[in-house]
């Protein structure tokens, strides 16, 4: 499989001889305790830190416009549609084309109704979607998101992960960090990396990585309740695999 980004032999902050590879069209999630280097790694991957240890696949990432990086909100405009339009105006597109792109992206992210709103009237989740829309309009190939789910509720996390899955299926590679493992449970076919003090302590298909509760607890991460319960029931030989449905689990326990 093609690689989009390769970080090789990184020596920076907590990282010593650190390497990571992001395959094309993958959904990579980076997690870990506080101060494990998640945000720094994402900055390196997004190319906002000047280092020679990161290489991009030139065929996919032709220039920095192909990388979209999110770590916090900073809206330069009060109005939602002005915020989303701005990158396209910078690219010198004509108004009709801009309107069409903005309309399409707003539909995908379910923010059509918000286009005429003021940013200050939006809640956190709506702002996040507006910020995401303004990143996506210019058609990036790599989307790097630093803990976007931090202040989202359970339902919002679920919806947001569905949106990201949709974005991935349109051919965009996603690298995301998270400080809790709840959102990981909502993804399909994602790769999870667990960092601890600048080292990868576990990696692989997300649900498989979640199986190792003692390792995750050791680095200071809490498993989502249903995963935690299933994994612990496995120790007592009461369960064979992770069951995400509470009702299914109850039925299988008390037959």
């Amino acid at each position, binding site marked *: 499989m093609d690689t989009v980004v390769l970080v090789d032999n990184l020596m920076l902050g907590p990282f010593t001889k650190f390497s990571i590879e992001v395959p094309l069209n993958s959904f990579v999630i980076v997690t*870990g*305790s*506080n*101060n494990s280097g998640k*945000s720094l790694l994402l900055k390196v991957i997004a190319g906002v830190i000047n280092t020679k240890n990161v290489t991009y696949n030139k065929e996919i990432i032709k220039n920095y416009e192909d990388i979209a990086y999110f770590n916090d909100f900073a809206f330069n405009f009060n109005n939602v549609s002005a915020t989303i339009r701005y990158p396209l105006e910078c690219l010198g597109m004509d108004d009709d084309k801009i309107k069409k792109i903005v309309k399409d992206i707003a539909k995908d992210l379910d923010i059509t109704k918000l286009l005429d709103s003021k940013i200050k009237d939006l809640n956190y989740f709506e702002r996040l979607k507006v910020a995401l829309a303004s990143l996506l309009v210019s058609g990036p190939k790599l989307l790097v998101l630093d*803990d976007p789910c*931090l*202040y989202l*509720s*359970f339902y919002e996390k679920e919806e947001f992960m569905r949106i990201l899955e949709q974005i991935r299926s349109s051919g965009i590679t996603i690298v995301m960090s998270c*400080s*809790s493992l709840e959102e990981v449970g909502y993804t399909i076919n994602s790769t999870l990396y667990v960092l601890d003090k600048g080292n990868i302590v576990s990696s692989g298909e997300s649900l498989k990585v979640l199986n190792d509760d003692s390792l995750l*607890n050791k*680095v*200071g*991460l*809490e498993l*989502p*309740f*249903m995963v*935690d*319960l299933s994994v*612990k*029931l496995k120790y*007592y030989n*009461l369960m064979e695999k992770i069951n995400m449905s*509470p*009702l299914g689990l*109850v*039925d299988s*326990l*008390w037959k």
Partner: protein
Amino acid sequence: MEIKFSHVHSKIFTDLSFVIPKGEIVGIYGDNGDKLLRLISFDDESRGIIYFNKIRKLRRNYYLFRKSIVLVERGFVNLFNVDNIYEYFITYIRYKKLDVKDVNEKIKGALKIVGLRLDILERRISTLTFSEIKLLQLALAFLSNPKVILLDEPFRGLDLEIRKKLIRIINRLQEKFLKTIVIYSSNPNYLYQYTNYLIVLYDNKILVEGKTSDVFFDSEELSLYKIRRPDIVDFILLVKDKKNIKLPRRVDVKDLIKDIYWNVK
């Protein structure tokens, strides 16, 4: 300090009546709970009858209470465009008009409570990690020696170890220094684990208030309005509902597993 609100109105809320009991860790749950924190902290304007320890808040004694309440925001807002941390502390003390005799001792004390090392004072805010910023926010809040501490989503983004540390700090403040602590969180799991008294908001009204565990287990209003319960409570209630088996109220998954083991075996 007990705070009693009766028939309080603000831009968002109409006719709210509730009590923040003394010596408890109080949780606020539900939409616009963060706005309720802002109302309690006086950052948002309100009208109505408010009592602090049975003293009624009036226009002429208002300042007495303003100083005893501090709100720790969910995200850090740099108020002064100052990046050096020592400088930030000094600017903050002057801005808040805090009566401090020995500034350095005071800062040292505040950092010690939250477990930050002194050399952080040499650093810049922009180089701090997420958890360090959270602890810095708390240290700043403690400078004014407040009686009531309001925390907006304090646990978000913190790993288990730092969350435990934060809980230790909160419990000590409440038990040893008798501070009133109010926590808003949109995550019912945290509220269930860490608070003793709970106020639930729905549609900008108080839906139910009472002991946290009673509210989550017994309140029918939560089911009626489809308000999410803590996962572990949901599971225990599901077992009772579907299999008619009454498991004891638990907070820790490990205890629940033992209950299940004895029951299924």
